[in-house]
């Protein structure tokens, strides 16, 4: 491989090729797409958390100016919005799976639930007309919190008879109980993983279109995975076969998970387009996004960690309640189970682990994966209880981690909760982070802060996560209703330029740069000669999309395999032209050479020959140079590392300031260090946001109190110091690139580091616990209570 650090190959900090169009306002987002004759949809949403719809009178709306149609749940008789995972409870029964109609039928189940759609010539006309729709509701008591839902008689879904979606377990409970009975010490903790609103910069949007001449539907949508949407909507909701349904996810302005799922609005505009004979556009406004994008996190955990007299972890027992919201979103059931409980070993050798997860329906917005998806929840739990155990046993909090780390020579390492880690070196990232964070100088900084009346604290998180989602056989056995491989196509054009079609989707991650670097590296081509195409089911053969930090580890590996097929084919062409055996052709720096000779052909010449095959032996060599690959990974990938947070608290006001944040992450091989750094920055910002600022608050009646940026605290640049971000570590052993994934590590590793730092700062003043977000009032109240 060429030395990429200065060029455009692997390891080079190439500037993002997509940024020019984004920064100059030339991106092509869904709302930029305007189809001839387009009309506009407005969705009338439920103002109640839980109510029977006793009648809907839309006659005035139908007669209003510009209105083309009004549809309700009674009109839209289609399939249910499907769930992509099926979890089985510990008694073997399948999870309860309520119907999820795109437009509510008979009942609304959360504030924001879709009640009717108004389609008109303009958006304002649709919105005006919606005000004249008379919906009579019989308001029902709402199950807003999980404890309400478990104890109340109020059923979110009457027909399934319970608000408990499933009651699942993993691990060996008997072994855990046995270990607990012999423990020298048991540390217990109760945690809340706060509910978050994803808030991608671009609100969701969808344009549905039907071509009566061909019978073909097109959906333009803000999606992280257009092929998945085509499959879910086509096969399960609208019964449109794939060859008559095109889904395009053009430039997408951030997703963080919230744009994975198949949403009602996509089905509504696609279904209604032939009914009115015109394309239909729907765009969410920000207030709508707050109450209709799937929310994230929202778990309550009780955990117990057993230790021996030397501080070695013997067993971990966890009880989790996970909020599903009112309906099962696409990935929801797998988040607290297979993406969370399977991570409970963390970076430690805990030999026995058992987790019980109860998933609960409530009258709130559906909850699903959000940057990190399950791994932030387990990481927060592990890293909080480990700190707590250190406090209780008097062992230093770094030392207790060291005593329990999986040693670097123990890989592959089988955990007691299903996963087998392939590589890692937790001691290495910890000791680097300790140096960068200047842990040695902390005592002096704390004393100096104290002289100003401020409380300093330092917190650690030595985390691990599983991404590169996912080996199909594994997830299939765990309840996934899909495979999680990826596909790529490399099309070499006659003049030697290359278009890559990838089944992953870039919505801020910079794939158009990183993937082009892979090709540049392997084929020795300049970046300008490589185009990365994604997000269109009519262009890309197939794809499972982007989430779970899978694009490079799964999609990039598929791409490399397709590139290698190109090289193999090109060698055959060169061998034919150079009258040598293909085995004797060497490919280096963009040239095909007969080994040991000076006879060679440039890549471009081979490409041209492939398309001008004047004397090809056609029974041995096909014309053309276009190769495809599907890649199904053998295992998850396991990034990990160490985050150290230093905070300073003003005890008079309770304000926490993050003074220093150090991240040393093992993300496997780094293709573009600048993009990697940016991904960690963004993730850490979201993690600090969760720890200090963000939460979705519902009132008792089920209204979202934090329904706008006036009340929902989005992190801003001035909430953060400059982050110290570095990568180091090990390679993934089961993909040829050695890559692990970086999209989520920042959001996964950081929250416990922040809260551990806050508790550390407050410890001497008698504070023993702190929940997320550690708002100024919470910190101040904790100090008051401890006095």
């Amino acid at each position, binding site marked *: 491989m060429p030395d990429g650090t200065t060029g455009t190959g692997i390891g080079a900090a190439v500037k993002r090729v997509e940024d020019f169009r984004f920064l100059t306002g030339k991106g092509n987002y869904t709302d930029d797409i305007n189809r001839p004759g387009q009309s506009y949809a407005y969705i009338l949403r439920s103002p109640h958390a839980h109510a029977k719809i006793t009648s809907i009178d839309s006659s005035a709306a139908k007669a209003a100016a510009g209105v083309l149609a009004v549809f309700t749940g009674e009109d839209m008789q289609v399939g249910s919005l499907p769930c992509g995972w099926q979890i089985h409870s510990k008694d073997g029964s399948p999870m309860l799976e309520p119907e999820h109609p795109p437009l509510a039928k008979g009942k609304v189940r959360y504030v924001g639930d879709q009640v009717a759609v108004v389609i008109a010539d303009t958006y304002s006309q649709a919105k005006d007309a919606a005000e004249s729709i008379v919906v009579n509701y019989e308001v029902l008591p709402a199950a807003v919190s999980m404890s309400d839902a478990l104890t109340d008689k109020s059923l979110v879904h009457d027909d399934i008879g319970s608000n408990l979606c499933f009651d699942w377990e993993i691990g060996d409970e008997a072994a855990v109980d046995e270990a607990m009975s012999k423990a020298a010490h048991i540390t217990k903790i109760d945690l809340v993983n706060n509910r978050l609103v994803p808030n991608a910069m671009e609100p969701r949007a969808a344009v549905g279109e039907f071509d009566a001449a061909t019978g073909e539907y097109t959906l333009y949508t803000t999606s992280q995975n257009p092929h998945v949407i085509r499959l879910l909507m086509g096969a399960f909701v609208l019964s449109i076969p794939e060859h008559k349904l095109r889904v395009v996810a053009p430039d997408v302005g951030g997703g963080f998970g919230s744009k994975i799922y198949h949403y009602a609005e996509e089905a509504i505009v696609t279904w209604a387009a032939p009914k009115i004979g015109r394309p239909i556009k729907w765009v969410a406004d920000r207030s709508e996004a707050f109450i209709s994008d799937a929310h994230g996190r929202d778990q309550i955990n009780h955990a117990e960690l057993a230790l021996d007299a030397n501080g070695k972890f013997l067993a971990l027992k966890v009880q989790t309640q996970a909020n599903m919201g009112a309906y099962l979103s696409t990935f929801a059931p797998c988040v607290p189970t297979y993406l969370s409980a399977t991570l409970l070993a963390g970076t430690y050798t805990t030999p026995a682990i058992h987790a019980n997860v109860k998933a609960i329906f409530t009258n709130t917005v559906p909850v699903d994966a959000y940057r990190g998806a399950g791994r932030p929840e387990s990481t927060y739990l592990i890293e909080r209880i480990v700190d707590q155990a250190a406090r209780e046993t008097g062992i230093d909090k770094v030392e207790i981690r060291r005593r329990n780390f999986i040693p670097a020579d123990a890989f592959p390492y089988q955990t007691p909760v299903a996963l087998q880690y392939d590589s890692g070196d937790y001691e290495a990232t910890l000791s680097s982070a300790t140096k960068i964070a200047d842990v040695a100088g902390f005592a002096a900084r704390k004393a100096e802060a104290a002289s100003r009346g401020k409380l300093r604290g330092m917190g650690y998180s030595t985390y691990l996560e599983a991404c590169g989602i996912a080996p199909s056989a594994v997830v299939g056995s765990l309840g996934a209703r899909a495979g999680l491989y990826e596909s790529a196509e490399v099309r070499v054009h006659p003049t030697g330029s290359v278009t890559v079609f990838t089944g992953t989707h870039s919505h801020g991650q910079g794939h158009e740069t990183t993937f082009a670097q892979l090709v540049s590296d392997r084929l020795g081509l300049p970046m300008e000669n490589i185009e990365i195409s994604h997000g269109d089911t009519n262009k890309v053969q197939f794809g499972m999309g982007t989430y779970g930090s899978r694009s490079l580890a799964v999609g990039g590996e598929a791409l490399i395999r397709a590139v290698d097929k190109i090289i193999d084919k090109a060698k055959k062409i060169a061998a034919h032209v150079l009258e040598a055996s293909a085995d004797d052709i060497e490919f280096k720096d963009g040239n095909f050479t007969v080994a040991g000779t000076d006879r060679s052909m440039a890549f471009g010449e081979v490409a041209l020959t492939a398309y001008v095959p004047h004397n090809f032996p056609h029974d041995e060599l096909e014309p053309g140079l276009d190769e495809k690959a599907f890649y199904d990974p053998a295992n998850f990938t396991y990034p990990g590392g160490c985050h150290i947070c230093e905070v300073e608290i003003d005890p008079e006001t309770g304000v926490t300031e993050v003074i220093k944040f150090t991240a040393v992450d093992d993300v496997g091989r780094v293709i573009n260090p600048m993009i990697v750094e940016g991904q960690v920055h963004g993730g850490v910002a979201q993690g600090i946001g969760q720890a200090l*600022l963000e939460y979705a608050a519902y009132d008792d009646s089920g209204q979202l109190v934090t329904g706008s940026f006036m*009340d929902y605290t989005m992190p801003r640049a001035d909430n953060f110091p400059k982050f110290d971000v570095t990568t180091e570590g090990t390679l993934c052993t089961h993909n040829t690139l050695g890559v692990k994934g970086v999209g989520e590590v920042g959001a996964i590793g950081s929250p416990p580091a922040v809260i551990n730092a806050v508790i550390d700062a407050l410890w001497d003043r008698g504070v023993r616990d702190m929940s997320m977000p550690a708002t*100024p009032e919470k910190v101040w*109240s904790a100090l008051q209570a401890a006095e």
Partner: protein
Amino acid sequence: MYEFEHHKPASVADAASAMKGADDGKLLAGGQTMIPTLKQRLASPSDLVDLGGIAELKGISVSGGTVTIGAMTNHAAVAASADIKSALPALAELADHIGDAQVRNRGTIGGSVANNDPAADYPAACLALGATIHTSQRDIAADDFFTGLFETALEEDEIITKISFPVANKAAYVKFPNPASRYALVGVFVADGPAGTRVAVTGAGQDGVFRVPEMESALSGNFSADAIANVKVSADNLNADIHASADYRAHLITVMAKRAVAKI
């Protein structure tokens, strides 16, 4: 947004007559409150009278111990004004911490004062400094102007033209921002000037901006942070929301007041 008639008069007199002629007219200044209200369909004025084209409403002047700011002067202009920075730096600093850069470049002092949002910053300055609100019809002392939550002494169709602040020899403002909106969760303006020793609190009161007589008398004898360190404000009649309870706000009033005094 519902439909409305849009007017863009060139003088205060024309604006006043446009308002008179309208069924249910509303003035538009920087639009930072008005436009979101319209977009959320919480208001449906028949006419919108845009003050943006009236030159006489803009500008800053400092003379004879008075800072006078035209109603349509935006927050960024106040924050950047060299004249205000030297005569009444606390006011420039207050303006510099309103919302974010976009808000400061659009929002106006007239709009802020007319709106009397209980979490807005300017009302505290007006009350603490003993400002005068000049309108198309009369002059109103700040003491009489802020009458309650989003309520002022303004008559319908009355237009604020400018606001004048007597220069105080001591003045400072410290705010504890709402972490989400950056409005004041608690903001305290302390001043010692022509209007006497005053402590005005915004963000905390259920009825909007208010003064704290106990602190004022403590400071009159001894203008120091220590003098008010133990003056507690009752949590009765203070706001409580997801960001801060009434008790926490009461506590912050003392802390912010102390810090404001200490800044001088």
